């Protein structure tokens, strides 16, 4: 019983921490982009205010699937979060998680997609169709990278992959397989929907795409979902390529570095057309990833 209560407490703690960190990162990103564009930018804590404000607002719904989608999106990412080691924190040390995480993230995406399309707004549908297309683009190189990592270290648990890079920082996959790390970085940008690959959101084109119909608590929940997703993806990158970390603080620091880099990198490029984005992913990242994988398996 004590064990269960402890676990539930752990659950909540991780969730709250990840949400808070994610929102903080989002604030930082807005600030950075503003500075790059020679603006002052909102304060770093602006996303917290946004979330609070959104949950206080009245909202409209388009039927039960709209509600269900929002719940499924948030629930999916929270569930995913528990399989990621954050520094020394990991609730379930279950093995085989790295493939699992990829698919668990899909639950959240499916929930969001279902809810937003359930609103009946065609712009949401267009956004979702683009998002799914782009997902096919970036997931392939990413899965090939995972393939080579798992084959290289003979384990598929993120924890195990992290342990394999222990010792000197030269053991980090960033230095051991720099090309792979670079590909993963590009994939990360795609995953987070940052600038060259943000055709699915495209506010000026399809009215923010999937979230066009969400307001009030729905947008708030999607914001929370977004923040946790960012943490999951960054944590995945840090664990796989930067050797993870012993404690949550250095882990957060590593995530922050990656996030800042990704933000700055993203702000440099204009938007890809959706099929060009997919083509790009299949040409360079996938090609390099396949070469790297061939190098590893031979």
């Amino acid at each position: 019983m004590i064990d269960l209560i402890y676990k539930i407490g752990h659950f909540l703690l991780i969730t709250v921490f990840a949400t808070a960190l994610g929102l903080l990162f989002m604030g930082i990103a807005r600030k950075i982009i503003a500075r790059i564009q020679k603006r002052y930018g909102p304060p770093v804590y602006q996303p917290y205010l946004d979330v609070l404000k959104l949950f206080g607002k009245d909202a409209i719904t388009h039927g039960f699937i709209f509600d269900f989608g929002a719940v499924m999106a948030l629930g999916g990412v929270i569930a995913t979060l528990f399989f990621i080691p954050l520094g020394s924190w990991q609730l379930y040390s279950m093995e085989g998680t790295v493939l699992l995480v990829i698919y668990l993230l899909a639950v959240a995406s499916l929930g969001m997609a279902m809810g937003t399309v359930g609103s009946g707004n065609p712009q949401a549908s267009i956004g979702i169709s683009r998002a799914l297309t782009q997902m096919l683009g970036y997931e392939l190189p990413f899965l090939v990278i995972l393939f080579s990592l798992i084959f290289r270290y003979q384990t598929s648990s993120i924890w195990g992959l992290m342990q394999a890079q222990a010792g000197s920082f030269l053991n980090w996959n960033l230095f051991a397989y720099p090309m792979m790390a670079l590909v993963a970085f590009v994939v990360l940008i795609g995953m987070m929907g940052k600038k060259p690959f943000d055709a699915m959101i495209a506010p000026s084109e399809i009215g923010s795409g999937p979230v066009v119909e969400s307001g009030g608590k729905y947008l708030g929940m999607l914001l929370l979902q977004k923040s946790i997703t960012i943490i999951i993806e960054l944590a995945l990158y840090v664990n796989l390529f930067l050797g993870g970390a012993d404690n949550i603080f250095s882990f957060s620091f590593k995530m922050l570095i990656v996030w800042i880099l990704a933000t700055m990198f993203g702000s440099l490029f204009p938007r890809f057309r959706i099929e060009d984005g997919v083509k790009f992913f299949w040409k360079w990242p996938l090609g390099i990833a396949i070469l790297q994988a061939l190098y590893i398996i031979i």
Partner: protein
Amino acid sequence: MLTKYIFVPAAAAFAAYILNKKNKKAGATITALVSAYLLLSLALIYGSWELNQSFNLSLMGYQLEFLMALTPLSWLFAVLTSAISLLIAVFSIDSQADFKFSSVFNLNFLLVIGSIMGVLFARDFLTLFIFWELMTWTSFYLISSGKKKMAGRAAYRYLILSAAAAYSFLMAVIFIFQQTGSFAFEPAAEFLLNNSAPQSILLLLAISLPFWVKAGIFPLHVWVKDAHGNAPKEFSPFLSGMLLKVGFYGLIVVFHQLSFFKIIENTIAYRGLPLLSYLFALLGAVTIITGTILAIRQEDMKKLIAYSSISQMGYIIIGIAIATPLGFSGSMLHLMNHLIFKSTIFLALAAVIYRTGTTKMYEVGGLIFRMPLTFAAYLTAIIALAGIPPTNGFISKWVIYQALIEKGYLFLALAAFFGSIASFMYVFKPLSTVFLGQLKPQHQEIKEVPLLMKIPMLILIGVIVLFGVFPGIQMNIISQISGDLGIETVNYSLYSIQGAFGAWNSLYIFNVFAAGFVIALLVFGLAKKSKLVGLLDTYSSGEYVTDAESYHYAYQYYRPFDRLFDNLAAKSLTGFYETLTANLLKSGESFRRIFAAGRVQNYALYSVLLFVILAAVGWII
């Protein structure tokens, strides 16, 4: 005692045919009862693997011996067949009025069930061939009884491919019979093992050809789409769920029981896998990719799912071809799971078609508000199909990935990943366009399907979740099968499977999911209540929206993606076959113009010429 599994459906078929003339629902009811009976009696003989039966027939001086036996593999397939036919029969009780000839449907359906049983229990080539052909023909009639104009043509394509393959099968079998004097599997396997390897391989490839066709593997997949798309909506679940799988049954028999893998064991290998096996797996990979790309392009819901079936068959063949313990278990898991979720999808779509009467996705929309249970069935099934935890579909794909990564088959894994990620795309398309989006005005009055149609869907939803949490149930029989075939078994417990790089534990996952959803629900519930507004009351960038029809994004859902593959799709294999046929016909026509121009005198001249040649030959000799 195995013959009853064949003769009970066969006898019931004719009873159903006659009774159905009196009462429209009698045939389907009989089908359901017979399937339930088969299921029950199969459950009772579980484990008695030494059960076998043989009877002799003296025909024109030849002693023919028909052998039948129960193996774990055939038991599994028989159970799957009877279970799925039970569900479909229950489903179809209420939709009998949709048929032009419902009694013929029930007749053929029961005959298909019986002949599949015959195929499964056969232990000699002759029995196998007889029931295989019976299955092909009866399913041909079932496919061609579809309502659409294309149905006959699609069925014809299916029949031609099957027949051509069956000839090759027969040739090889007769060759083996000449050498061994017996049709039974064991002497054949022995003979093939001791024969010269290239010849044995050729013979076995010829024998396996009908199975490749039935399984819909890449160069021979052309029949699948049209057959599935045009078959009666009640038969599509069976076609995709079971008939395709019977091909895999045959392939497993050829690979293991006819010792194909033993023969090619010592040939050139790539990463420990004989090149031929690798080639099969590559075919599977190509199947996955083609099936997926073509599925994404489809606008017809049944054809889309048919292509998805093709691509999922690729996973199964990859696992069977690499034949590692994990690969085989993954394949068998995926085979069962595919049967379950694909039947669910087809049943859900059948429910939609039953109510709306169309298979074009852009002609419907927003049905979730009218048919919530159908939607739930479809949603559960596509979550399983896309391989999202915690459903059964993810487990099988996970096991297959483990098998592929274990051996480092990069390109197979790449195809598997591609098919898996892209399956989100194609399963989301019907979800979004049929169930979500704007409800069409003409579908405002639609009701949920009747109770007898709901029950099978509910059962299947339950089964998907059940196997998602407790894969050990499936692994139980799979481990018996692999033990029977001489493959090492995978470690498993009721809710976990041991992979190559770590274990799968569905109980954890399920817990975590529950926790995640509870938190999300709390967040949702604690927030302010929201106001319900209509579907047309949306942000439209200032446009004034009046009709739901034009406000539904459904046609060419993934156009940007399709543009990437326009060139490829234009050069589709179907087109290639069609060009081939057209050229063949053209050359035949020009040949005919020379030799058979309708001038009787020329025919006389040819026959005289033949006489001259024969006489000259006779005279010279």
